[in-house]
């Protein structure tokens, strides 16, 4: 271990460390712009020049490796002179328009200019002006302010995996720009705003809204995917103005997905429900809480008393907090109903009988970056868990082999070792091939052994199996499509067998912020009740909805809407009106995550609690309070809570330890039928990235991105030719009684006999099962 002396203090540093690392270790700040701990070293801004003994010139701390006995001065006269010289150069062409710059007050250049800049400029020539660039709806540019640190460019190449920004031009003519006529489309694009040390790249929705120093910072957790990114919401006058990442190396590192960053805009959507409402004939009237809750309690009691608890179905969103979900399941069971579920978009619940615990990632999130063998099954991971995809990308860069079994060969922006791309109904068969290949190689696949003997193994499956047999840190991860699959239980059973045989850990990529929490808390049938699928297929007389929009969330949206419309009583606890006035009888305005205390359990079982960042909007109330009062009105025992913390203490008595004790991905006893794939065309019906939950659906900037474009019908060129259809033309998509007319587009990354039509979108809500069959016809 080398010893060095830095600013007079002697320290021991790790071999291979740079002077920047050493300074950080010694608690010394060296000014810098291009250096960033997560990006490659550019050494180009030259702000971190320091004096090193025996070196004839000042050296950049970010790029200079330490050697034993080195003596370094970061604030000596020579070092400061060099730093001041660089600062002067940075400022000569910088517009110094701080008073109208959104970065003002939180600008690295501004801050360092105070320390290293002169009060007058020796530069008397006209300054450089740079043409603006259009980067899309999320990022605003003032390129004249750019200091060419290249962080945004390196982020694209190294973290986001796509080089959407580059630096063409030479010398003073160097400009950061996107490809001609292109915008920035990465699902992680907003991070360049945090990375930009000046006001060249700023948040478009936040532009000119508030000053950094007017905002208070409140810690919270992203309510979207199962990663549970840590973030800060910035608040002024009781309103959230933006969201930025909070560093947590174990979870999101220093990044946020755009979904996490920009969904706050939906908090002030015009569709927010701010007062309780009840249906009065064909009209909706605003009422006070007392009246609304009394009506809900009365109706539920009456239906329970006449038809029994089984007449009530309870559907909850896995984006609701631990506290809300706990009280809701308590309420359901108090009413004598075990019909409760959060898995609206699932279609096969057969594994419930054979599972020991809650489905989770199977390993810590941070380990995703260090795996050396990965098999993704039915995972559109870039869109479903963008930051988990980023970690896998880093693993691949470090040498991991990543293979996929999926219904689409989407670009993961990293090298894919082996792939099996088949239509959804052939997924079980594909996974069975891998199990069979392991068996052929002499490995014990346990209970599935008997059922896979006749499976013919393709070369791709054998290659995947071969990959899984190697490596030390390996995982098989089931994505959203595998979880929603009509034969999800078989996929799970086969995955478990493959994991047991190969030593790979088996995990689930949780789609929602509290998917794991919902399972741990029992928000699914525990005593023979109806799961989400049955609740909607066998309509109930009453439904209690919390945070869900079944017409978008459900596996079969059409069927869900029919069930709700036919019910005698539907109460929706919701932050937004949405389509609920169509089928509900009472609407109760509940607080979104920023307006309530609560907690989420992320995909690795991490319990993350947060306080309310702002007061609830209008008459909105935190859902745990609403449920508590409802419990009282229904005269149910055990509803006397004074705080969200008290609810959490009951729900998870040992906190995270309670969660961990209930995590288990093992499954047994699922029979493998492996029938032939379904004839005809399979639908690949996933939830688009910006349709995941009620919040993102209403976030205006996100809805303007390319990822939020209206659903189209995507099909392989061969299929388009075979059906005599025309690329770019309108086609009618039919699923049973449901139909939609959409534009046909070509995507040769799909299997020939599958058609991708997104679910979870109003334009396709009239269609049926997400992974069912469909037909196409020319219009």
């Amino acid at each position, binding site marked *: 271990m080398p010893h060095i002396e830095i600013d007079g203090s002697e320290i021991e540093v790790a071999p291979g460390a740079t002077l920047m690392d050493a300074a950080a270790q010694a608690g010394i700040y060296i000014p810098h712009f291009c250096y960033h701990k997560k990006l490659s070293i550019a*050494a180009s801004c030259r702000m971190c020049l320091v004096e090193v003994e025996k070196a004839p010139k000042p050296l950049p701390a970010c790029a200079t490796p330490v050697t034993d006995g080195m003596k370094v001065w970061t604030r000596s006269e020579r070092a400061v002179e060099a730093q001041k010289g*660089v600062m*002067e150069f940075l400022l*000569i062409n910088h517009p110094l328009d701080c008073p109208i710059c959104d970065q003002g007050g939180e600008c690295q250049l501004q801050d360092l200019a105070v320390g290293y800049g002169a009060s007058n400029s020796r530069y008397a020539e006209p300054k450089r002006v740079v043409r603006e660039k259009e980067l899309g709806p999320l990022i605003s540019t003032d390129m004249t302010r750019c200091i*060419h640190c290249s962080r945004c460019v390196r982020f694209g190449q190294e973290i986001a995996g796509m080089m959407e920004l580059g630096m063409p*031009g*030479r*010398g003073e003519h160097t400009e950061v720009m996107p490809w001609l006529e292109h915008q920035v489309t990465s699902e992680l694009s907003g991070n360049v705003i945090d990375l930009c040390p000046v006001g060249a790249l700023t948040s478009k929705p936040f532009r000119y809204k508030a000053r950094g120093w007017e905002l208070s910072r409140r810690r919270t957790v992203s309510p979207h995917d199962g990663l549970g990114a840590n973030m800060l919401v910035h608040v002024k006058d009781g309103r959230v103005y933006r969201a930025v990442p909070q560093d947590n190396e174990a979870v999101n590192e220093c990044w946020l997905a755009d979904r996490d960053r920009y969904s706050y805009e939906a908090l002030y959507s015009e569709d927010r429900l701010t007062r309780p409402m009840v249906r009065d004939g064909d009209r909706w009237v605003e009422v006070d809480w007392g009246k609304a809750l009394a009506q809900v309690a009365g109706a539920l009691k009456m239906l329970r008393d006449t038809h029994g608890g089984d007449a009530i179905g309870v559907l909850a969103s896995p984006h609701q907090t631990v506290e809300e979900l706990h009280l809701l399941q308590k309420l359901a069971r108090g009413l004598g109903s075990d019909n409760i579920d959060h898995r609206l978009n699932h279609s096969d619940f057969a594994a419930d009988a054979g599972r020991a615990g809650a489905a989770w990632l199977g390993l810590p999130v941070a380990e995703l970056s260090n795996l050396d063998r990965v098999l993704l099954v039915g995972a559109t991971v870039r869109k479903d868990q963008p930051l988990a995809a980023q970690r896998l990308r880093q693993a691949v860069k470090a040498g991991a082999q990543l293979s996929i079994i999926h219904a689409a060969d989407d670009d993961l922006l990293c090298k894919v070792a082996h792939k099996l791309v088949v239509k959804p109904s052939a997924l079980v068969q594909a996974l069975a091939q891998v199990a069979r290949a392991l068996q052929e190689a002499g490995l014990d696949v346990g209970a599935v052994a008997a059922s896979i003997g006749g499976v013919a193994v393709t070369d791709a499956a054998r290659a995947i199996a071969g990959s899984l047999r190697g490596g030390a840190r390996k995982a098989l991860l089931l994505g959203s499509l595998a979880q929603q699959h009509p034969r999800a239980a078989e996929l799970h059973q086969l995955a478990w067998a493959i994991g047991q045989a190969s030593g790979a850990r088996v995990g689930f990529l949780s789609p929602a912020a509290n998917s794991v929490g919902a399972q741990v808390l029992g928000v699914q049938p525990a005593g023979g009740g109806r799961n989400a699928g049955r609740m909607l297929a066998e309509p109930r007389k009453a439904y209690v909805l919390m945070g869900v929009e079944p017409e978008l969330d459900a596996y079969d949206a059409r069927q869900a809407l029919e069930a709700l419309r036919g019910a005698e009583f539907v109460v929706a606890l919701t932050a937004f009106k949405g389509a609920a006035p169509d089928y509900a009888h009472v609407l109760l305005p509940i607080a979104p995550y920023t307006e309530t205390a609560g907690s989420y359990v992320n995909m690795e079982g991490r319990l993350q609690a947060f306080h309310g960042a702002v007061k609830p909007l209008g008459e909105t109330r935190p859902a745990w309070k609403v449920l508590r009062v409802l419990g009282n009105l229904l005269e149910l025992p055990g509803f006397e809570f004074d705080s969200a913390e008290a609810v959490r203490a009951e729900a998870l008595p040992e906190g995270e330890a309670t969660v961990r004790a209930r995590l288990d991905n093992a499954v047994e006893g699922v029979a493998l039928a492996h029938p032939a794939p379904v004839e005809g065309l399979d639908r690949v019906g996933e939830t688009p990235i910006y349709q995941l939950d009620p919040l993102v659906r209403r976030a205006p900037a996100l809805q303007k991105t390319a990822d939020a474009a209206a659903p189209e019908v995507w099909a392989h060129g061969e299929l388009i030719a075979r059906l005599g259809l025309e690329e770019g033309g309108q086609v009618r998509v039919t699923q049973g009684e449901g139909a939609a007319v959409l534009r046909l587009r070509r995507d040769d990354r799909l299997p020939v006999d599958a058609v991708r039509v997104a679910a979870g979108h109003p334009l396709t809500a009239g269609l049926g099962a997400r992974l069912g069959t469909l037909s196409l016809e020319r219009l």
Partner: protein
Amino acid sequence: MSTKVCLWTLDHPNPASLETYVANGGYSALKKILAEKTPAEQIIEQVKISALRGRGGAGFPTGLKWSFMPRSFPGDKYVVCNTDEGEPGTFKDRDIVQFNPHQLIEGMVIAGYTLGARAGYNYIHGEIFELYQSWEQALDEARAAGYLGKNICGSGWDFDIHAHHGYGAYICGEETALLESIEGKKGQPRFKPPFPASFGLYGKPTTINNTETLASIPWIVKHGGQRFLELGKPNNGGTKIFSVSGHVNQPGNYEVPLGTPFAELLEMAGGVRDGHRLKAVIPGGSSAPVLPAEIMMDCTLDFDAIAKAGSMLGSGAVIVMDETVCMVQALERLAYFYFEESCGQCTPCREGTGWMYRVVHRIEHGQGRPEDLDLLMSVGGNISGRTICALGDAAVGPVHSFIKHFRKEFEYHIENKRCMVGD
């Protein structure tokens, strides 16, 4: 007539042809080492003895550079020839490629053999495209004759050379920017360490030498390092091509022994144009500091003597200026060059070269201010030694030296808003 190492073929008809080269002993050095399986250490030792110093501008001892190459490193290694001759005033490498390509090929193949390389690249400046084509022809000839490609001279050893042409960016002559450019990226210098010898082309150990350097290798192998050394003077072995331009009667390339007095070279070039007298000389290409006539006339042309006089031998581009030259205007043109050619990667050079140009431009156009000369010295000082590559220093060299030696002319310009000369 003195010995020529590189441009001797010009004394023959068809100088570039394989026949001329072979008829005069060409490729015999290569054949000899392949037949005798000469150990690489021996060749490097001879190159060290020869005191051959890099002809591209830095003058780094070639033998020492070659010894840095991890020859036993498993995997690919490369030899790269830098014919990205972009330094204003320099036009020697193009003559080697044009008139003696086979000696360069032989030099590269010997380097490949010595350094354990798998392939060689010759990066040819974008503005001399016709050379790229004639070079490709020469490679084909060498391949057909068995001096290049598979099983060279029946030895069972394979080595091939690829031509790569740039697009005229000066910065691509910087060795690591050149590597980036070959890799298909934007030509920007890399931060060193790591040096190309450990992390070079495509991340593999790589040795980069100037065209004239590599073309000198066959001569050294054939005649021995000692004889090469004796052509020049201690620590400055061999001959050197000087590209003489400017106010002389016969501008052109002159290959003379290192250590030749400048006065002799000037005479070879026909002397200062008639009726004029020598005012100043830039002895080593535009980035070398300018020297006034009286200093230059006492100088010999070798790395050490010119360095002692306060400039650099550089690439051997001797720019001669007579008394009609306005030093402010000359500096304006040079400053503009560096401003336009800075790659823009690192701050001091990107911002500072433009600043210096604008100030000199202002002075030249009668808008100079009394404090401008101190400002130029200070801005230059803030660039010098603080950049990733040497372009920053190169841009400062002319500015500092012009002001140092001709300050009066600049002051006159600022004060009188016109030239001191030429009125």
